[in-house]
């Protein structure tokens, strides 16, 4: 999998957001907000192909967590990023 480089992270008043293309609807803006840890993972993994284990390793390298917690958090992050199509296959 990889991060969709066409979707750009933008910074507004301390928030990290991605504008989602309005799906044919006028007068609607949808954004996805990334918190600091989600953004950190995003920055570590962008611009390359990566596997689920790479995400777990990035978590373990960055945070003082055990492997089970890292796996659970990695699963959650990948799931949410996929749901918003910020990660593509």
């Amino acid at each position, binding site marked *: 999998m990889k991060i969709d480089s066409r979707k*750009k992270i933008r*910074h*507004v*008043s301390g928030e990290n*957001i991605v*504008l989602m293309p*309005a799906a044919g609807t006028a007068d609607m*803006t949808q*954004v996805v907000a990334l918190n600091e840890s989600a953004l950190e993972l995003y920055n570590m993994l962008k611009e390359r192909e990566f596997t689920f284990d790479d995400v777990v390793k990035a978590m373990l390298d960055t945070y003082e967590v055990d492997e089970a917690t890292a796996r659970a958090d990695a699963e959650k992050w990948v799931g949410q990023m996929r749901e918003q199509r910020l990660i593509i296959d």
Partner: protein
Amino acid sequence: MATGVTLTIGGLALTVSGGDSVAKALALPGMGAFRGETNGNDVHLRLDERVELPECRWLHRFDIVEETAECRFGVDASGIYYYTFGDSGLLRFDPRTPGTVSLNTIDDPNILRFALWTAYSMTSLWRDAVPVHSSVVVCRGRAVMCLGESGTGKSTHTSLWLKYIDGCHLLNDDSPILCVEDDGVFVYGSPWSGKTPCYRQERVPVAALLRLEQRPENSIRRLGTIESFTALHPSCPPALAHDELCTDRMVDFIGGVISHVPVYRLGCLPDEGAARLAFNTLMA
């Protein structure tokens, strides 16, 4: 022989030059109120130019609803933006020289009016000024900008302020100019006010933005950063959201606005209570 006049809109001095189109532009509703000199000429609108349309990547297509004219917004290989209006109208804007916009000759006055708005919206984005789809009421020297989808009741809501709250007047009913300036966020009247002939050469500090939604009862809530962003963004010129560079500028602009001005969501009925609730919350 080219002739030129100066209009001052949204704090920008626009020199409008060209042939016969200059007089046609000035004869459009509301334009006359914005004639006047300021210090320096910030922006140059060149009418009756020979604009050639190169190969473009089209980013957005839309209709000017009441004119049934199809319009397109695109960019060529060198990064120059083009709009087409109906069968023959053309606009050219090079972001490397953002103080100049060129238009060809556009005969239909309604399309010319829209093309001038479009030209303004392109160049002004590079000066931290954006036309915002809204109805704006000025109350005791401060402005409340009502945002919302078409048909939400923006004009209805501002008319309720005029009716029930003392010391109010309408600034603009469709497309005022919102500006981030050194000393704060200001809104200006403009020659584009929808169906309401309200063309005021006036600069007012913004008290709040108010995103309206029709609801069975009145309620008001201040929005956080992300919701404030999504409240204002769809009211900015929509074509520009389809381009990366324009979006960068727009995001910076909106960030500047919402870090200085509170944004609220008003769920409302079209009644006196809605105006009083908003007034008591925003102006107290």
